């Protein structure tokens, strides 16, 4: 980001945040784009790195292993109960970094904005990102903005990348699940995906289903502080718990045995899933994690999780087993058995 000369800009040309819209000049790298950065992004994201106005952010790194992750966010609608694309973009990448056990430090944020996008919404999203970042203890230190013609982007796409530092002795990875390990879940399944899909399907709520979008790095820090030998951490986002567990089974070459009755699902989420013909295990979450640990450490870890606001409903939901076929098996509510499979293609609601 280049610093434009402040004295050359007349005060009357401030952005009309109430009624103005993004146009192609805002992405052209000139004065208009500078305005966008100075009047919307910089105040909202507010940190010394951005204030310098360089194209990059420079910082010292502590000793130890570093972790980096990136994610792009294309959620529609942009605003939903419990968050928006801005807070989601921060939480998503903070969580991806945190799932390695690392402490997230810095994020970048790239915006691809469709011509005509209301400035008021952009400002709202930027503020939401700033709040989410501050609450998570991270800073958005560098970014980029592009504007494309009408119809070339579905309103707004956001990419965030993040880096963090892994504490010494921590080796958390999807290939470390071992037969006999306990599987822990931090809370209820399906909240985020159902909040979005129910909204889109035009369902109303007596009790609004709220996305669980949240930064999990605080919870992870507490967990890692009490035990360094956590084998696997992952947040079940797109594809839900089913995708996450199948991925881990494949990476670690193991199977799993889950207990359906132990997996918490809110009644409203169950109701919406029934109406839409969805399985909560296939639905995205944005503020939950699973942990796989040696069985003897489960009780200790559970206590720490439950002491944290984002882990109050934490519970053991199953165990890792030896299985060359790498199935995720589940004891059903009524005592039978089924497998929990990856979802085939996009979820088309079951009607008939």
């Amino acid at each position, binding site marked *: 980001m280049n610093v434009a000369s402040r004295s050359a800009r007349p005060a009357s040309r401030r952005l009309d945040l109430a009624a103005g819209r993004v146009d192609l000049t805002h992405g052209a790298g000139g004065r208009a784009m500078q305005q966008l950065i100075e009047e919307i992004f910089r105040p909202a994201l507010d940190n010394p790195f951005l204030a310098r106005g360089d194209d990059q952010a420079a910082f010292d790194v502590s000793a130890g292993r570093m972790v980096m992750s990136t994610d792009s966010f294309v959620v529609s609608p942009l605003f939903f109960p419990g968050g928006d694309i801005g807070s989601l973009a921060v939480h998503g990448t903070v969580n991806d970094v945190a799932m390695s056990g690392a402490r997230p430090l810095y994020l970048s944020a790239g915006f691809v904005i469709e011509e005509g996008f209301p400035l008021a919404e952009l400002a709202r999203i930027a503020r939401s990102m700033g709040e989410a970042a501050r609450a998570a203890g991270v800073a958005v230190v560098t970014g980029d903005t592009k504007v494309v013609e009408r119809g070339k982007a579905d309103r707004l796409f956001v990419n965030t990348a993040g880096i963090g530092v892994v504490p010494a002795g921590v080796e958390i990875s999807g290939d470390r699940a071992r037969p006999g390990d306990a599987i822990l879940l931090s809370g209820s399944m399906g909240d985020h995906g159902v909040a979005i899909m129910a909204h889109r399907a035009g369902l109303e709520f007596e009790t609004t289903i709220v996305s669980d979008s949240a930064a999990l790095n605080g919870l992870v820090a507490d967990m890692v502080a009490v035990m360094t030998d956590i084998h696997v951490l992952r947040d079940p986002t797109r594809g839900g718990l089913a995708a996450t567990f199948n991925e881990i089974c494949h990476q670690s070459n193991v199977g799993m045995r889950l207990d359906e009755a132990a997996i918490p699902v809110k009644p409203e989420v*169950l109701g919406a899933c029934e109406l839409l013909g969805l399985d909560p295990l296939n639905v995205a979450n944005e503020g939950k994690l699973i942990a796989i640990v040696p069985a003897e450490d489960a009780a200790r870890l559970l206590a720490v999780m439950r002491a944290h606001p984002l882990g109050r409903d934490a519970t053991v939901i199953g165990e890792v087993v030896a299985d060359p076929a790498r199935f995720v098996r589940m004891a*059903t509510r*009524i*005592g039978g*058995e089924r*497998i929990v499979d990856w979802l085939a293609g996009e979820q*088309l609601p079951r*009607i*008939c």
Partner: protein
Amino acid sequence: MKHLDEYRDAEMARRLAAAIAREARTDRRYRLMEFCGGHTHAIFRYGIEDLLPSNIEMVHGPGCPVCVLPTGRLDMAIRLARREDVILASYGDMLRVPGSKGQSLLKAKADGADIRMVYSTLDAVKLAEANPGREVIFFAIGFETTTPPTALAIEAAARKGLTNFTVFCNHVLTPSAIAAILEAPAIRELEAVEIDGFLGPAHVSVVIGSQPYEFFAEEYRKPVAISGFEPIDIMQSILMLVRQLNEGRAEVENQYIRAVTRDGNLRAKEAVSRVFELRRDFEWRGLGHIPYSALRLKDEFAAFDAERRFDEPYIPTEGIKACECPAILRGAKKPTDCRLFGRACTPETPLGSCMVSSEGACAAYYTYGRMREAAQ
């Protein structure tokens, strides 16, 4: 959730399993067909067979409207959807079913055909109202449960004077399918399927009542238990059938008494008889040609009949040679008897309708139960 959670109770399931195990005689087998795809889905999703003794075998029936629709009819729908001025409205279930030449509605949509998924026939009527310059065709499928909604939509369109709304009607009838399964192989040229009793469909019966099944029980001496959808309903119905067979009875029993009566829903039946009449003949995937087994629009509703407005021929096609959907739909084979199952044919790459419909036996088995095959 009331009227739902009670029928998913673990303790109740345990006690029913014990009762079934106690009462199933060890000197015989019990081959019970669950007609309805929804029951097949529930059986696998809850693992109900794990709670049954090994001499009770569930045979999966053809009660899956997506599965029994012949490929030629789906091809017609795809051709209709590809027309310039057409918006094809369809339930989600049909979108991924493979038609001929690797086509499907979803692929046609990606190619530019205007295909919209709807939850209800009312949405299709609204589409027609909102797009007066376009032809809206509703792709109607389903057994008797789904037919009354189509009838009401056609009457609503008539009342509103819509001239751009038609229905491509593929509604089929349950008793015809049951008869086809039971009829002597000599007539049907299909191998005999040994079935001792039937779990009757829950929601078809809400509409048609329990009375239509009495013929089968009497004529063929096969007990029927009309069963609710939930796992406890299914287990209670299995227990009822076991008792009937032990006692040499062949009656129609209604387990789903909270929603099914002997006469069914008169309003629904009347709506259907106002709008539809029987087709002389209809081809079913897996069951061949069955007379008086399907519905078409009556002459007074000809203006709403897509087959009369649009000139699309029905070209019967054979499925992929190795595909065993036809035998699976009759209950003559199991999904694991099909060479393609789990290899070339999976939910991601379905070759037959039994795999793509979530109520098809192959899809249910693959998604929830294929670890059993691996264990053998």
